[in-house]
């Protein structure tokens, strides 16, 4: 067993394109356990990104319940959703989405700097933790460079470090390898798996690459807004550092 960290119950999401209703998700129900390495697979338009948006609390369902880390997202206001994203969810974007004006170190540290509860007393611990993450993703030598000076793969490594810096319970990755060549994509996937195993962080990534899908231990396949497969391969996964903890002590890779 593992604790269920994400639960979708009869979730429906309808978009309106002008006057046309588009059913992006149709009565989706699923559970994701803490520490899972989950892939959401399916062709374009199948609803992968919509599910990630709902789990990531950047969107709300038209009907049904999305429960993340014990909280029903439709009951939360904007500030509470922001707080939930900040503390419990890390994001890895297909296009990396690093802040161009900040260097690598600052980009990784950014979520910590947005935390008004992080005082100066933890500054030394914070620095150590950020340095550790950057070293873990192999970018120690480039930590003072700007994102524009890095390759795609390096940028995605920075994004992974940034996603983990708050020690979130969940990391969402929307097609993290789509903009990378296959070798770099594989190395990114290995890094994500490594982080998943090291910290016990729940990783949920979307992809339409069949090889990458099979790397996950929980595979969810979508088609036309419906789940066509929900399969666990490796059984339960272990949990590393405290789920949702925001302390500054890092685990070991």
């Amino acid at each position, binding site marked *: 067993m593992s604790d269920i960290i994400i639960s979708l119950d009869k979730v429906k999401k309808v978009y309106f394109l002008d006057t046309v209703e588009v059913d992006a998700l149709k009565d989706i129900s699923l559970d994701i356990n803490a520490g899972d390495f989950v892939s959401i697979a399916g062709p374009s338009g199948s609803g992968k990104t919509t599910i990630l948006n709902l789990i990531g609390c*950047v969107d709300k369902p038209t009907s049904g319940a999305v429960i993340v880390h014990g909280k029903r997202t439709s009951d939360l206001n904007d500030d509470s959703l922001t707080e939930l994203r900040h503390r419990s969810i*890390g994001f890895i974007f297909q*296009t990396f989405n690093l802040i161009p*004006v900040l260097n690598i170190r600052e980009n990784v540290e950014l979520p910590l*700097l947005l935390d008004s509860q992080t005082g100066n007393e933890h500054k030394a611990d914070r620095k150590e933790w950020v340095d550790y993450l950057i070293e873990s993703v192999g970018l120690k030598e480039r930590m003072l460079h700007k994102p524009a000076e890095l390759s795609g793969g390096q940028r995605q490594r920075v994004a992974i470090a940034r996603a983990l810096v708050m020690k979130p319970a969940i990391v969402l990755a929307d097609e993290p390898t789509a903009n990378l060549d296959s070798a770099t994509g594989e190395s990114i996937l290995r890094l994500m798996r490594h982080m998943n195993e090291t910290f016990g962080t729940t990783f949920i990534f979307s992809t339409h690459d069949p090889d990458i899908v099979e790397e996950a231990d929980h595979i969810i396949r979508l088609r036309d807004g419906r789940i066509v497969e929900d399969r666990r391969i490796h059984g339960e996964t272990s949990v590393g550092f405290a789920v949702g903890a925001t302390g500054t002590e890092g685990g070991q890779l």
Partner: protein
Amino acid sequence: MIAARLAWGNLGLHRRKSLLIGMIMGMGILILFLGNSLIETALSGLQRMFVQGYTGDLMVTGPTEFSTTVLGETAGSEEVLPHIAQIKKYEDFLASRGDVASTLPLLSGQVSFGIGETELGFGYCFGVNVDDYRNFFPDNVTLVNGEWPAESNGPWVLLSEPTLALLNKSASSPVQPGTKIIMTALANSAGTVIREVTVKGVIKFNQSNQQLAGITLVDADTMRDLLGFASLRDGAPVLSGQEAAFVTGFDPDSLFNDLFAGSGGATGAAVSGAAAPEQSASTQTSVVAEVVPAWQFLLVRVKSGANSSRLLSDLSAFSEQIGDGDRVQDWIAGAGKVARTAVTIRLAFDLLVAVVAVVVVMIMMNVLIISVNERLYEIGTLRAIGAKRRVVRNMILYETTFLALIAGAAGLLAGLVLLLILGKIGIRAPNLFFEALFGGQVLKPTVSGGAAIRAFLWILAMGLGASWYPTIVALRIEPVVAMRGD
């Protein structure tokens, strides 16, 4: 502080837009700073010149509907300005206040000068007690030739240098101290009045413009004669009992009952009550009337640091109580067209600035909106990874504030350099109008701290105003935008 860090970085990343907005702000500050400093220099110079040399801070004038300059120019009327009937009450009221430094009664009008039958020219004249005048304006008059008159000297005149030069142009022999000249004025109430006066000296006004430099000082009694007011040169008039009764118990309606029997009486002399009875040729009892000397103006200087606006208000209220219709006005009204023009120019400049500000704000707003739209994914990402709306709002506000600070510093520095250069070389007045406005032939602008602060606050307000709508646009960006890709 992360909002400030992001804002600073964004300014560098979007250099062209930052430069464009910065240049608009910098130019705005430069124009505001320069313009306000020039106007303030001219206005403060004008104020100093008039207050310390001609008008005082405030003045009471005889009853009139219109503002009247100290030169006796009454807007909309050709009448001689009437005297202040109860000037003593004003003097007592002002003497009782702690914020009044001194007062000066004054007469003013335009006269012609001549020698014998020959008319030599026209000029403005102040009728004054010379000692009081010199005490009231201690630094503005210098005796160039001759001597200061004593009150016992009889009719005297102190000609200004330009007036002397004007008279000497046409005079057959040089006009100089000791020369007797003829002064003529058209007093409405008494027809044409001619007086012979002795030139006691030649004076120079230390702060003046072309018009003011030509003012002539004449003894108050001669000026009263010229303006048609009662003169006290020969002492108070002796009135017969019938005359005294007429003056003290004057009923205008009686004029119509006995149209040709009335007596004109002295215009402008305030007669109050009857004094000791005297014998006269007639069998009736005569009286010496208590006559208050006629003055058209009572100039007031306030003490240093005192609030002249408050005194203006209190004095106006007091004048209302007296109820004679006297006018209380500030130095600007007393200075007339020149000062009003300067004030109008400042108002016009402020209006122009306000109009330009609206246009500039619109331009800046557009540039900022474009900038926000170019950063949709960046702002969406910030929101997705946990930035609350206030972080986004602060980021935009910091960007505007940084720009205002940098552009403001550059604009102020450029303005400072220009003002220092202009202060050294001066701006030469191109014509008489500007000469009057500048208070001289050359305006040497001074650096005004107030103008600098006002310019900066204007720009900051414009910057913040311009960022208002872009901030709203930025705050509407939802975190889901980050998921859509760059």
